């Protein structure tokens, strides 16, 4: 038997966990799971060098280690600080941490457009979740918010820089998954922006679509799915196909309504990280059910807005019409949707270029 590695004992919010040396505080907390896991907006376990920038995962180290029990003087980014044996960390048990986190959320939101009602990321947005959990309802920011022009940075990807929180995940993705990174950060300070030096140049490689999945906000969205539907109206379905690209894991989530596939993404775990990266062919080109082997519905966290349309374990309300009518059956009761042509089922929304317009629903009288 191989020699057993010495494990480090770490106490996070008074819960002890044993982890391998070299583990970060964040990953140790993820080993425990639940509420003690600090939120992370820029750290991505699958991307090397990510993390440390958004500062939402700040925690307080109340005891450095068994050998050196001094507490660390400042709050530290848990995603980039490795554990020591005997370390004690306070996350939700430290008012200082919660206060600082609230501050960070406020900073992230002061220049965010808060255009969730028209944002495609809404419902699966890390920033939305973070603000619900740690933010405040009002803003103290009274100035004009910073804005940028929207940009098409490739055939399939839309960049909405105004929404960006500069987590650098997409930069790392392009560095580590594609042959050559075509985009990066330009300018500095609060004028910094993600961009390509030459417009529309993010098409050269087959893996750049993953920047959409790693983006925690709606800054990078899928142009083949933009404005087609809200995520909570769609049914996520696990599916796979034999992809020709050896680097692509082929395991995806299809976002469907009826038989239409609106969007294909990689499978995300409970921390919003993909389980495996997928190629652009799977993501953008395969929008027919026949392309895929469907495995079954994807499990979505019960509290997520995405599962609001999925009635699991809910009692169906009983038919009460007969009861209130003293046992008589109603004379006329029909499902209007089965006979109405208003929605025009023959128009396949997912096959349209761009958002649907009235011109896509022709009537006898011409355009409505």
């Amino acid at each position, binding site marked *: 038997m191989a020699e057993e590695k010495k494990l480090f004992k770490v106490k996070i919010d008074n819960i002890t966990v044993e982890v391998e040396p070299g583990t970060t505080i964040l990953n140790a907390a993820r080993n425990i799971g639940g509420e003690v896991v600090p939120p992370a907006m820029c750290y991505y376990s699958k991307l090397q060098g990510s993390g440390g920038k*958004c500062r939402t995962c700040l925690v307080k180290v109340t005891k450095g280690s068994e050998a050196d029990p001094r507490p660390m003087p*400042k709050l530290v*980014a848990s995603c*980039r600080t490795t554990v020591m044996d005997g370390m004690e960390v306070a996350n939700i048990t430290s008012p200082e941490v919660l206060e600082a986190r609230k501050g960070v959320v406020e*900073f992230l939101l002061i220049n965010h457009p808060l255009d969730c009602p028209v944002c495609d990321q809404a419902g699966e947005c890390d920033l939305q979740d973070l603000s619900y959990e740690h933010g405040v309802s009002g803003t103290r920011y009274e*100035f004009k918010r910073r804005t940028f022009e929207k940009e098409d940075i490739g055939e399939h990807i839309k960049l909405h820089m105004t929404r960006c929180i500069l987590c650098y995940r997409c930069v790392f993705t392009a560095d580590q998954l594609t042959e050559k990174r075509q985009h990066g*950060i330009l300018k500095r*300070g*609060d004028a910094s922006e993600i961009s390509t030096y030459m417009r529309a140049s993010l098409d050269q490689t087959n893996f750049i679509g993953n920047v959409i999945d790693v983006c925690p906000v709606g800054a990078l969205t899928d142009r083949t799915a933009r404005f087609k539907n809200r995520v909570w109206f769609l049914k996520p379905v696990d599916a796979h196909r034999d992809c020709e690209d050896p680097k692509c894991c082929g395991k995806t989530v299809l976002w469907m309504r009826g038989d239409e596939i609106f969007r294909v993404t990689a499978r995300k775990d409970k921390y919003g990280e993909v389980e495996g990266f997928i190629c652009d062919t799977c993501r953008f080109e395969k929008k027919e059910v026949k392309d895929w082997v469907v495995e079954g519905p994807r499990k979505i966290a019960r509290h997520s807005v995405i599962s609001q349309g999925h009635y699991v374990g809910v009692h169906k309300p009983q038919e009460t019409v007969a009861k209130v009518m003293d046992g008589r059956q109603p004379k006329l009761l029909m499902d209007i949707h089965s006979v109405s042509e208003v929605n025009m089922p023959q128009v396949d929304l997912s096959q349209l270029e761009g958002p649907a317009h009235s011109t896509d629903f022709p009537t006898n009288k011409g355009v409505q």
Partner: protein
Amino acid sequence: MGRKLLLDKAHIEGIRYYDVYRKNGGYAAAEKALKSMSPDQVTEEVKKSGMRGRGGAGFPTGMKWSFLAKPEGVPRYLVCNADESEPGTFKDRYLMEFLPHLLIEGLLISSYALGANTTYIYIRGEYAWIPDILEEAIAEAHKNGFLGKNILGTGFDLEIYVQRGAGAYICGEETALIESLEGKRGLPRIKPPFPAVKGLYQCPTVVNNVETLAAIVPIINIGGDEYVKYGIGKSSGTKLISACGNINKPGVYEIEMNISVEEFIYSDEYCGGIPNGKRLKACIPGGSSVPIVPANLLLTTAKGEKRMMTYESLNDGGFATGTMMGSGGFIVLDEDQCVVRHTLSLARFYHHESCGQCSPCREGTGWMEKVLKNIEHGKGKMSDIDLLWDIQRKIEGNTICPLGDAAAWPVAAAIRHFRDEFEWHVLNPDEAQRRNFGLVHYADPLPVAAAV
């Protein structure tokens, strides 16, 4: 006259050139170190001198050197931080412009002590004419056998390269400097690992300020034990102070760290007092990022002692009533200066220079500037002052590098000590556009602390 160690020969005509420098005792320390001392002995001497880093943080240099990792077969680097961008600080420029050989000699001795065969001088791009001076001096040193292969026959090799920055304050932060030197965006790295373990090109690296490295020369010349006799206590040696603002004689002064702040401002040897008979209102004694203090707290500490120009005395009272030595950018404000306006210009600077990597600094600095602009231009509200306080509190300590702290401290100190001036601006928006708040009570003697 205070004793001098660095600028004692600065007045000699032609000291910029090798021949004159050599004739006046130059490179004697280098000969002494390389020929008669081992690298560890040099480090030991620097440790004994107790010299603290002159770049701002004041960390003991000898200690920093001893942290350098020394794995086999991995090159080590020494980087000279000449990215002097702190508003109010211009001492390194003076040193490099007039005594380039002093810096090169210091670099040679330090590189020898650290075992670095390649040394970089990272100089800010705005000092456009200084790289030429340095490169000329490096060429002269080469010609005379103090650089290159097998220096003085000791077998020690050293090359010094001058690299220009492209105009970013953040590149004065050591890890951002290293990134920039590697040719990348100047973004601070997340520590650990510290540069002493993984710095330039992932190799052990020491980054020191220009003045620190130049001061190695007198330390070797007179010995660490003698160096400690300059200054008071842990503030050993001499310090270059760049004095500016409302004083009669602005400029770079070398002080022995045993004089009082009052003497420094009013004596004819140094600043020569405040012009036009005006009175002292406030001072930032260590470069723009250290806390501003009003006149009464500047001249005496909260305990009622005379405040001295030393690291400890300036820091006496912590942030509540003290300030910091910083990089020695001594900015004096007389009674006609407006602290709100002054704080605004500092906030504007930090907003402009924030690198944008981590969120508190990127978003917070801009927010502070906008709020301060409102207050300064008569559109402020009372709640804005508390808001400012809250913003700075949430930036400080929560960022990757100290730029966040540097942006937060001036605002915090201005509100802490000059809150009534801010309130006056809010309450009298029209009057605040026409006149300044004036000196009011800022120079009044402090209430004597009750004996405990």
